[in-house]
């Protein structure tokens, strides 16, 4: 396939389409990312170059192909136990707090928004099995959502490459919770079945969600303009239980965007508690 430089029109088309469908802000400075992400889409669909792919899309609207383009541009990088610190906070502080607060209902709901291929929600599932005593007698709902059908399918399969399980996952947890199958590692059913996945585009109408005790929305808001960030945070607030907490990425904050959250520093991590 040709690797000709993207034309300004092609870059503009990608930026406009991605913004319209996902509200994610791209610009010409991300042309390297556009080339890296769209080359496989062009190749898989039989185009000689990304420019040809975009020319075809501009000539006639093809929703399936357009979705593939948007999904390729919006897939998040993820890894097991990414950044470690939020998981330490879960173990040291939040699990015991929720056990007390929800003792009557014995329910715990956690949402991984923009979950990509599921490593975050499965890390939480493994963490619960290791550190949440009496788990079996609780009703636990772990929900992963993403706008990409492709990554949701992969997340539900819970099948990871050696490179993926090498990243962030302690070897002791790998041998305990996964089984090897050829070149891949599959989560054991008892962990895989703890999570469910559904399609959700943060800027569109949301499907019904359980009332959440903990929300992970990490490294997502950075892609949006302030107005969209405010709108998303407001909607997130509406699905959170009283005193529920929100984890954002290290470079993200609710400060100056939404006064409904209180910033809490806990050990080495920061989270935002619903006021």
């Amino acid at each position: 396939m040709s690797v000709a430089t993207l034309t300004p029109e092609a870059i503009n088309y990608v930026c406009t389409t991605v913004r319209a469908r996902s509200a994610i802000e791209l610009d010409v400075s991300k042309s390297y990312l556009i080339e890296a992400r769209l080359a496989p889409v062009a190749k898989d669909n039989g185009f000689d170059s990304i420019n040809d792919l975009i020319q075809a899309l501009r000539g006639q609207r093809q929703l399936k192909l357009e979705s593939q383009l948007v999904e390729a541009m919006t897939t998040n990088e993820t890894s097991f136990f990414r950044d470690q610190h939020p998981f330490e906070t879960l173990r040291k502080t939040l699990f015991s707090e929720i056990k007390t607060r929800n003792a009557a209902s014995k329910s715990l709901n956690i949402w991984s928004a923009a979950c990509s291929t599921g490593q975050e929600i499965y890390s939480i599932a493994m963490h619960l099995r290791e550190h949440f005593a009496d788990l079996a007698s609780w009703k636990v709902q772990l929900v992963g959502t993403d706008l990409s059908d492709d990554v949701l399918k992969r997340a539900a399969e819970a099948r990871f490459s050696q490179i993926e399980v090498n990243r962030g996952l302690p070897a002791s947890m790998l041998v305990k919770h996964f089984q090897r199958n050829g070149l891949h590692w599959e989560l054991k059913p008892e962990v895989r079945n703890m999570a469910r996945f559904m399609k959700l585009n943060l800027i569109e109408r949301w499907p019904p969600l359980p009332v959440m005790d903990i929300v992970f929305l990490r490294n997502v808001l950075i892609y949006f303009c302030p107005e969209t960030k405010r709108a998303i945070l407001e909607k997130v607030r509406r699905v959170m239980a009283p005193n529920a907490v929100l984890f954002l990425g290290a470079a993200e904050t609710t400060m100056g965007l939404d006064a409904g959250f209180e910033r809490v520093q806990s050990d080495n991590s920061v989270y935002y508690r619903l006021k």
Partner: protein
Amino acid sequence: MYALIIDDSRAMRRILSKIVMPLGLEVVEAENGQDGLDRLEEMEPPEVILVDWNMPVMNGLDFVKTVRADGRYANQKIMMVTTETEPAQMVRALMAGVDEFAMKPFTADVLVEKMKLIGVRLPNPVSSNE
């Protein structure tokens, strides 16, 4: 502060050194488990030992068992870096006293993450590899 890198492949020792040195650790190399034990006798305990499994003279598993049997190294951080990917073998290594296990091929950030995970003190923890 230094890392002891034990691998019979000179190329692999060089790759590991290039990952570890920007983190602020010096590097001492050994070609097999016995060579690694000899280096340990000569020097203060390292900050971390990165050890391969399959090597001539003394393999990595026997090296780990020998080190763990010596009370001087009860808290020594040891990571096995190997092509072994069988879960049963990984369990053997963990039972022998390995703190963490990285499967080859790996990337620099995998190794750095795992060193942080087991509490290796790194003078320059944000390396150019991250």
